């Protein structure tokens, strides 16, 4: 296992690379303001959805981690002080939403009503309820199993916990693949079926799990010696996902993630509400 020391690196406040270019393109006032932070995977889910669906937004990336620095405008939108948060200026007074999956469903549904979008969809249409349900099952597995397993693995400090964590995370990905295969078998090709199938489109599940796959490939690899599962289909899926313009445009350079996640890797106290929840054996906030 790694014999690296905690070098006291801090989380970044500004995006870098492709993500920075995307932030610059979305700095004008719009109907919707997206509150986020540059390294947060929950934010990245929503960010990818905005980019893919082509919905106008203004990005407002803040320091949401330091409890003494949480901006008032973030707390107004998200009482728990968590990102992502949305401020909807078309209402008077403006309305707010939080929770990544809730936000994604909202913008997906609003996209059907809006005119300035790409006419794309992340979920299978309501005319295919079974395909939608299978995708929701995948999403449920990502949020309740894959994501917590990622943090447990990263935050594990002793060798036994690290080995167990790695195994658990691997298993969670195996199970996800099982669900992807099942949907491919039972729902067949169609709108919203995902990048798992060659020729498929970016979908709900890709967007929900992508940020953690990306961080597994750099952060888990660096701090835990994690090897991504490999196989022709899995490799092709991950490559299609990482190279997808909507996803790539929300990724910063590798150093940003390595720096920002060092505090998780050494399980520094009060790293974040997510880290605290994992440490205390609670569900994620």
């Amino acid at each position: 296992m790694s014999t690296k020391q905690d070098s006291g690196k801090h989380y970044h406040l500004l995006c870098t690379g492709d993500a920075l270019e995307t932030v610059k393109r979305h700095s004008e006032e719009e109907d919707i303001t997206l509150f986020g932070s540059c390294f947060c995977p929950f934010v990245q889910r929503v960010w990818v959805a905005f980019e893919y669906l082509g919905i106008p937004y203004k990005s407002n990336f803040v320091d949401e981690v330091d409890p003494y620095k949480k901006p008032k405008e973030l707390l107004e939108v998200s009482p728990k002080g968590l990102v992502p948060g949305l401020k909807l200026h078309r209402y008077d007074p403006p309305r707010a939403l939080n929770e990544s999956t809730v936000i994604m469903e909202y913008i997906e549904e609003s996209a059907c009503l809006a005119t300035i979008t790409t006419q794309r969809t992340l979920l299978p249409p309501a005319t295919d309820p079974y395909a939608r349900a299978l995708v929701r099952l995948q999403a449920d597995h990502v949020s309740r199993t894959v994501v917590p397993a990622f943090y447990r693995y990263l935050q594990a400090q002793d060798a036994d916990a690290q080995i167990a964590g790695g195994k658990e995370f691997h298993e969670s990905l195996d199970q996800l693949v099982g669900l992807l295969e099942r949907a491919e078998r039972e729902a067949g090709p169609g709108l919203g079926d995902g990048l798992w199938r060659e020729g498929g489109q970016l979908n709900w599940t890709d967007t929900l799990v992508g940020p953690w796959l990306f961080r597994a490939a750099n952060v888990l690899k660096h701090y835990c010696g994690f090897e991504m599962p490999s196989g022709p289909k899995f490799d092709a899926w991950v490559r299609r996902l990482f190279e997808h313009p909507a996803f790539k445009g929300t990724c910063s350079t590798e150093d940003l993630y390595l720096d920002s996640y060092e505090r998780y890797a050494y399980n520094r106290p009060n790293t974040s509400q997510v880290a605290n929840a994992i440490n205390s054996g609670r569900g994620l906030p």
Partner: protein
Amino acid sequence: MSHPDADIFPHATEKALETVASHSAPQDLIFYAGWFCPFVQRTWIALEEKGIPYQYKEVNPYHKEKHFLGESLYSSYINPKGLVPAIEYHGKPLYESLIICEFLEDAFPSTPRLLPADPFERANARLWIDHISKAVVPSFFRLVQAQDPEKQAIALEENCKALRALAEAVKGPYFGGEEWGLVDTAVVPWIVRDYVIAEHRGYKRADVGGGWEEYAKRLESRESVLRTSSGKKHYEKIYGRYLRDEAQSEAAKATREGRPVP
């Protein structure tokens, strides 16, 4: 070794039994249920509210019958986790109580809607369903299963806080206003079971505040809730195990281990 929860009383009783009896004919939709399970009751209520024809099949999840876990028409698993509720619609299997409810919304569009039409109101409903899943339900299980008086006190406070927040968001008479909805459906099974924490953990509806007591009373008297609730007699053996933290359900184990409830 047989599972300790395997000797649960085998079927629904009282009003729920009547509902089971009137849903025994084969239908396009098969509903796999455990009469005692709060997660099952969510889906059961949704089926009743929407008036969807279904065939009720009692499954003891701790017996894990072969068809339930293994082969089915399309040689796919109805529910690899072996948990209830699950459905088979035209032979296609699905599980997870809330995912099934959303599926019923999509697949039966001409039945009463459980979610509002406006995207923002829908998002608001989903936020509060998320709150129920993350704060209300886990704190309920933690409170029931806590053995240490200090832990019980903490869990009771968390539970009340979670319920009060929900109560304050209620438009009235139901969560979304005049119509019964998915938020009401998602929380009511824990309302009808709150006598357990009232009798054994010092919980009082009146202590929650924010209009909770009135809201709870209104929800538990809904026809679909009454029709899917069994008599209290046979619950006692089940929740007794939870109170002693001996229960072996996936929800109980997850609570004990500090994991999300599956």
